[in-house]
């Protein structure tokens, strides 16, 4: 759930202290082994029922017509960022439509009586200093409060509070995400070698002064020195470079699954390395920006540029170029009517698997992108799980677990205590067959997933079932694009992003190849800039 590493910072808590605490904690859990009162299970997710109507397209004929110079389809971060960029350029006459009942896409959130919690993306790593667009946005939103010695000062309340992350490893919680306790010298050396290699990738620039790995990916050098890494899997690269240590592989596997939805066997080596090398401040500025509601905070900042022009519960289902412009048919799920939107230009801030249904002759292009499904589970616990080793952190990862661990949703609260503890568990599927995983996600019952989540957490939290009062399961069928080998620098992806007839423009993280806020943010800006550039050239 967070990249960057604090590998060289030693843990200051002694092991003995932890061992003692383990002994003390064990009888407590044995004591309350009996089943607690039935816990409440809720099931939420993206509106896949509405979305799946694109398969059959049995929508009513248009009963209303709307005209706009510019339409944005999709109010995820890409679409919202495009709206912001339009406003910045003085363009206020546009429409934005969104299938869901809320804007933000993956940057959505839920809320219960005790806490807000993310329903998807939930943090933003500190941006690279040269990413001026993003830095400006953070200044506007007072996330950067000023500069000192040329370095940005981030609002303390929006940076992850300490302690930030811990790993359950060898029956113990340790600080940081890299396994450290009881490592052999060879393993420690391997980790050091690995991070040195990542450091080198991070720092290396091509002759043109651009980085080989950068964010957004479009800012990387065209120099193809490392492009061959996009043709092999991360696992292959680890193997080729003698990183055959199960603990190290599991660590890297975790990182890949966390950012890309697929593990080392699924993603390309270029993407795997990018995870470590794309962010330039490295371990010395190892913090992220986060909020109880996750990136919904950022989505809300962007929303103010779009909300006056936004229609929610609108499913665009057909985009047809005409002689004078574009005809977009959208189904209004609230009134159950189809609206015809006549637009001069449109920005498709939609994923490619959706574009396959909306645009003519896009099926093949659409098939090129693979999307990893995700499951999130937000648990309300009656007591704070206090365990041996290291106290509850923002990010809590279980080594070798099925899922990716969990976020402590109240971590960013300034309050001393909370009545209940709210955590959000993240699960990306193990296999590389995303279609099969998606089927599994939707076919299995809520009861099944509840048991699955509890069993996975049980290893580190014996008896967690007895303190769990409520679970909200959130299903994301097409959680994020997976940067499988050949995808990021593949021809198909580049073709998918090309504007059509100076009228249809594209903005989505699947056109960058990795699904992170920064990419979406730039996708929106770049689409608008390109559109405006083409318009200027036209006229």
């Amino acid at each position: 759930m967070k990249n960057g590493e604090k590998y060289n910072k030693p843990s200051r808590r002694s092991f003995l202290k932890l061992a003692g605490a383990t002994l003390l904690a064990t009888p407590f859990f044995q004591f309350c082994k009996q089943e607690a009162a039935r816990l409440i299970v809720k099931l939420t997710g993206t509106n896949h029922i509405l979305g799946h109507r694109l398969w059959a397209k049995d929508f009513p004929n248009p009963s209303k017509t709307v005209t706009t110079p510019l339409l944005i389809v999709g109010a995820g971060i890409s679409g919202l960022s495009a709206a912001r960029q339009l406003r910045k350029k003085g363009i206020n006459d546009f429409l934005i439509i969104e299938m869901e009942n809320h804007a933000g896409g993956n940057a959505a959130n839920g809320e219960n009586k005790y806490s807000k919690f993310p329903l998807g993306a939930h943090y933003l790593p500190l941006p690279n200093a040269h990413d001026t667009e993003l830095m400006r946005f953070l200044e506007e939103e007072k996330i950067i409060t000023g500069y000192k010695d040329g370095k940005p000062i981030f609002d303390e309340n929006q940076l992850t509070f300490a302690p930030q992350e811990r790993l359950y490893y060898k029956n113990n919680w340790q600080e940081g995400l890299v396994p450290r306790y009881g490592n052999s010298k060879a393993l420690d050396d391997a980790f050091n070698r690995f991070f040195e290699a990542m450091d080198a990738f991070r720092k290396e620039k091509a002759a043109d002064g651009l980085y080989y790995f950068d964010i957004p990916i479009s800012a990387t050098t065209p120099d193809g020195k490392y492009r061959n890494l996009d043709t092999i899997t991360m696992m292959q690269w680890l193997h080729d470079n003698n990183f055959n240590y199960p603990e190290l592989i599991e660590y890297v596997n975790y990182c890949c699954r966390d950012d890309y939805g697929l593990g080392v066997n699924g993603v390309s080596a270029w993407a795997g390395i990018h995870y470590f090398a794309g962010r330039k401040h490295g371990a010395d500025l190892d913090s992220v920006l986060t909020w109880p509601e996750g990136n919904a905070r950022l989505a809300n900042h962007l929303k103010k540029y779009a909300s006056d022009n936004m229609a929610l519960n609108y499913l665009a289902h057909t985009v047809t170029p005409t002689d004078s412009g574009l005809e977009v048919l959208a189904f209004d799920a609230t009134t159950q009517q189809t609206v015809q939107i006549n637009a001069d230009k449109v920005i498709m801030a939609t994923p490619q698997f959706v574009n396959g249904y909306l645009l003519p002759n896009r099926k093949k292009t659409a098939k090129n992108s693979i999307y990893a499904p995700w499951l999130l589970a937000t648990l309300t616990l009656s007591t704070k799980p206090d365990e041996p080793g290291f106290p509850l952190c923002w990010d809590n990862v279980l080594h070798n677990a099925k899922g990716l661990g969990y976020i402590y949703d109240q971590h960013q609260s300034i309050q001393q205590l909370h009545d209940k503890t709210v955590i959000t568990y993240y699960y990306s599927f193990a296999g590389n067959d995303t279609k099969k995983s998606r089927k599994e996600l939707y076919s299995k019952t809520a009861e099944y997933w509840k048991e699955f989540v509890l069993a996975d957490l049980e290893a580190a939290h014996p008896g967690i079932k007895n303190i769990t009062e409520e679970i909200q399961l959130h299903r994301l069928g097409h959680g994020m694009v997976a940067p499988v080998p050949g995808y990021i620098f593949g021809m198909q992806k580049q073709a998918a992003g090309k504007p059509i007839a100076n009228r249809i423009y594209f903005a989505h993280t699947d056109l960058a190849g990795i699904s992170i806020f920064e990419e979406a943010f730039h996708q929106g800006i770049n689409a608008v800039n390109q559109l405006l550039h083409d318009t200027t050239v036209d006229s």
Partner: protein
Amino acid sequence: MVKNKLSFEILLLLAVFTIATCGLIYELVAGTLASYLLGDSVKQFSFIIGVYLFSMGIGSYFSKFIRRNLLNTFVEIELLVGLVGGLSSVILFVLFENVGYFQFILYLLVFVTGCLVGLEIPLLMNILKDRVKFRDLVSNVFTFDYIGALLASILFPLVLVPQLGIMRTSLFFGMINTAIALIVCIALKKELKRQPLLLFKAAFCMVVLIIVFIFSEKILSYSESKLYGENIIYTHSTPYQRIVLTHNKNDYRLYLNNNLQFSSADEYRYHEALVHPAMTSAKKAENILVMGGGDGLAVREILKYPEVKHITLVDLDEGMTRLFKENTVLTGFNKNALNNPKVSVINADAYVWARECKQQFDVVIIDFPDPGNYSLGKLYSLSFYNTLQHILSPDAVVVIQTTSPYFAPKSFWCINKTVQQALPKTDAYHIYVPSFGEWGYTIAAKNPATDFKSVKRKANEKLRFYEYDFTRLNTFSKDMVAADVEINRLDNQILVRYFDEEWGKIQ
């Protein structure tokens, strides 16, 4: 027959002896508990002895109305004494929380025990009056009675309290009482009516006392008693913390989650130093804020300034502030400060409260627990001190308890440096508190022209420690200085690490 008669007599005289011993023990237990829990031992002992003797008189008076089944009644009363007396200390310990009724229950128990013991001697004399010559009877009964009393008064302070503790002493003597009843029941089987029922009652009482005796450790948390090495006189768990009050000689100590909060012997040093430098150097001192400090001891010091119009105390724990409003021992310490009309007590999370507060204060006194965990660490963060800015009047002075500069210099100077980041006019000072060791504070002002050495007003009563000379507290020897400390921020919580590292070495 003669032999039989002898054993009958000896048995009953033995009973007199035990009753006397037990009776005095219950009296001593009640007196000790009352002086522990309510303070003022002379007054409490005097009252208890008076009430006890008086109720014995009442018991004696009523003994003349018992005419039939004398032996049966004797055994039953013996059982009642054992049960009531034995359980009295347990009841008093448990009920101490309901302070309002406590004194009533205390004296009721003393009265009941006294009455029952008062009944027994006349009753016994009545039983024996036909079997023993009156002259012998009176002499023997009173001899045993007074020997028992002597034994009890010697054993109680020298053996029983140190070995068993108060609660188990009374339970133990309850059991002896009951045992005598049991023995009488068995030995004088033929003399008793409905003996099996009586035997059952006796056995039942014995079982109750044994069970409570076994669980008395839990009730009193004996482990804690050992931990503190002092007599625990009160424990209370709130949702936030475990409050333990101990008493040892003339010293009461309050522990929160096993950390010493204050010792009644020297807390005036801590609280005078906490409050007066800020109160005397602030330009104005009308509206005062105290954060933490639910014991009301800082408020007591603030109330020494007539200029003060209003004091707001923000403490998370309602259990704590209520205790210091209602408990007579504790309100004795804070001079009933929390019930003063100038004081408003708010039970809220200080950080959240400060963020939403619309008032401004002239002096802010921050007395939070030490930053021993990440939750508490937030209350020492730069973000917190920045949050305070908007509730400070333009000339406000803030003082913060800053742990020990001797035991934890990095922690101390880390807090100081963090405060300085938010309020550039910052200074530090320290004092010696015998029960804590060397202890320190950070003082800061919004207006850079503020002079902490200036004395703009003085307390309206003589202080025991602070002499209105800030400079005397303001110098730090080499071993209390730490350079190169980072600023404590929410995202690094470096203070919690310093604190863990420094105190970890000591504990």
